[in-house]
């Protein structure tokens, strides 16, 4: 660690984090001591087979759960030991969630879905929630779809609404759990391209995925197995999703024409 105080604290700092679930009489360890640091502006993919501890790690980073031992600092704040309400406020202020199943409120317009986290903002800073939500929807390319309800949108569009909802509070970290798991390959690439574009603007992105062709769009890959970190390396030949899309588009265009 550097002795000089950092201008910007690490977005994520995990120190010897473990998580043990109590299943009846037996203890099931899900994380067996994980350490890593994520600096601002990174785009990281966490990969691993199911049962590797990915989801548990995701829940801890997302302040939905607390480690059994070890410490977790989010944006310089120590998270372990916080109360339920403090965790809720932290999720609201610092984190933006994107889920595999989109998790939008049904029968609620895109705009109102995006507005939702602002309604739980206790700082009272954000007055004009409608304007902020509209801006977030424009950022994800859904400028014309404010009043559509989730069932009137395609999967890719729904995921964009979810991303707008995650962005609207201007979080420190965008956390995406299998964001392309329910999408076809084309929509997946579009979503990844959106993440890359957001990352280019300086937003820290953390993706959890088991698809290698999604992970290779990140700048760095962390791999878990049996609750331990087995790989933490930069991506040598990082793919640009928009370039991939172009490549795909050309032959299809020929086909259609």
């Amino acid at each position: 660690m550097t002795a000089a105080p950092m201008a910007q604290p690490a977005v994520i700092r995990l120190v010897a984090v473990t998580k043990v679930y109590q299943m009846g009489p037996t203890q099931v360890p899900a994380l067996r001591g994980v350490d890593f640091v994520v600096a601002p502006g990174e785009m990281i993919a966490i990969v691993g087979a199911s049962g590797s501890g990915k989801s548990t790690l995701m829940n801890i980073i997302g302040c939905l759960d607390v480690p059994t031992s070890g410490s977790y600092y989010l944006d310089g704040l120590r998270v372990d030991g916080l109360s339920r309400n403090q965790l809720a406020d932290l999720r609201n202020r610092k984190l933006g969630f994107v889920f595999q199943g989109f998790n939008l409120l049904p029968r609620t317009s895109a705009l109102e879905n995006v507005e939702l986290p602002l309604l739980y903002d206790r700082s009272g800073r954000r007055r004009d929630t409608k304007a902020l939500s509209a801006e977030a929807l424009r950022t994800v390319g859904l400028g014309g779809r404010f009043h559509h309800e989730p069932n009137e949108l395609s999967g890719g569009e729904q995921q964009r609404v979810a991303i707008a909802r995650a962005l609207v509070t201007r979080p420190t970290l965008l956390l995406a759990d299998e964001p392309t798991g329910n999408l076809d390959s084309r929509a997946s690439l579009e979503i990844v391209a959106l993440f890359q574009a957001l990352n280019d603007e300086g937003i820290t992105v953390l993706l959890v995925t088991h698809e290698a062709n999604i992970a290779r769009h990140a700048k760095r890959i962390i791999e878990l197995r049996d609750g331990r970190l087995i790989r933490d390396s930069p991506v040598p030949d990082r793919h640009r999703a928009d370039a991939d899309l172009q490549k795909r588009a050309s032959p299809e265009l020929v086909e259609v024409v």
Partner: protein
Amino acid sequence: MRIPRLMRVASQSILRNPMRTMLTILGIVIGVGAVIVMIAVGYGAQMRIQEQVKNLGTNMLVVMPGVSGLGGVSQGAATFNRLTVDDAEKLAREASLLSAVSPVIFSRVQAVGGLGNWRTTINGVSSSYQAIRDWPTEAGTFFAEDDQRSSRKVAVLGSTVARTLFPGEDPVGRQIRLGTVPFTIIGVLAAKGQTANGSDQDDVIILPYTTARNRLSGLTFIGAILASTSSAADIPAAQEEIRAIMRESHRLGGATEDDFTVRNQNELAEAAQSTTRVMSWLLAAIASISLLVGGIGIMNIMLVSVTERTREIGIRLAIGARGSDVLTQFLVESVVMSVVGGLIGVGAGYGGAAILGRVTGWSTTTPPAAVLIAVGFSAAVGVFFGWYPARKAAMLDPIQALRHE
């Protein structure tokens, strides 16, 4: 979250399932409506009794035989009768605060005249009875003191008797036979309507008490002595005065209990109302059971709603809602439903009371406070029955809730 936002979120969720919401609200509508109708019936009955007692006369006092506790107007027929005409005459002579005194001799006779015969009540009273009861004549006149002194065989008919025996004609000047004795009809009283306990005050024939005693087979049974004061302020003192004179008249010494009861109009009203009050509380209590059932309906639906919306709760918690935000959201939902139900129920209750009044002829009056109570009560029902489901929602673990299918 601030209140307008809370209301918006709540109404969104409520409107998402209109049919279910309507049925849930219906439970409260019926509950509140029933309570309002029952209160209207009970209160209406009380108002009516009050009016009727006011209708009895002006500044009236009643002396009844026997000892009877409060609430015992109907016990007036005591086990033994100790009121006499002498008591009434002594009161008339000696009481300084009384402007009029009249004994009331009760009897039942068969009246024959006009179209046929009719069994009715005889009231033998003094000439001041008309003033005490504040009871005008519709035709002819009431009898005078002279008629009373000479025990003349004159009769004044109540309007029901007049209508029954002499329909469509003026009975004044005609003859009527009471038992075997012929009387001349000199007047017909204006209709007074029913008494507090529902008997027809107009089904009566009024005679001078002297005549009743002397000419009709030896009647000395005095049901009551009526008296009145010239001003309402004198009533308490007059009551005491009557008591003193009556005790003297009955030769009751020292510690002996009164063998009569003196009541003023307010006490009569009180006694008559105490029965209806119990009745109306009972009605309202029964009706509020349906409000309780409505509340259970809300709880039921809210529990279903929490289970159904577990995922939504998970989403809200994940994006930063606190447990208290979720709690408030669900509470507001149940309170909004119950208050809307309460307001509609008030309307339904008013309508129901009006229809019931028209159909049955009961007088129904809804006191304005009942509306506030009903709405307040329904809001309380919303909080009470919404609390458990809302708390259940607030305690959900966000990870579990998000995984919920």
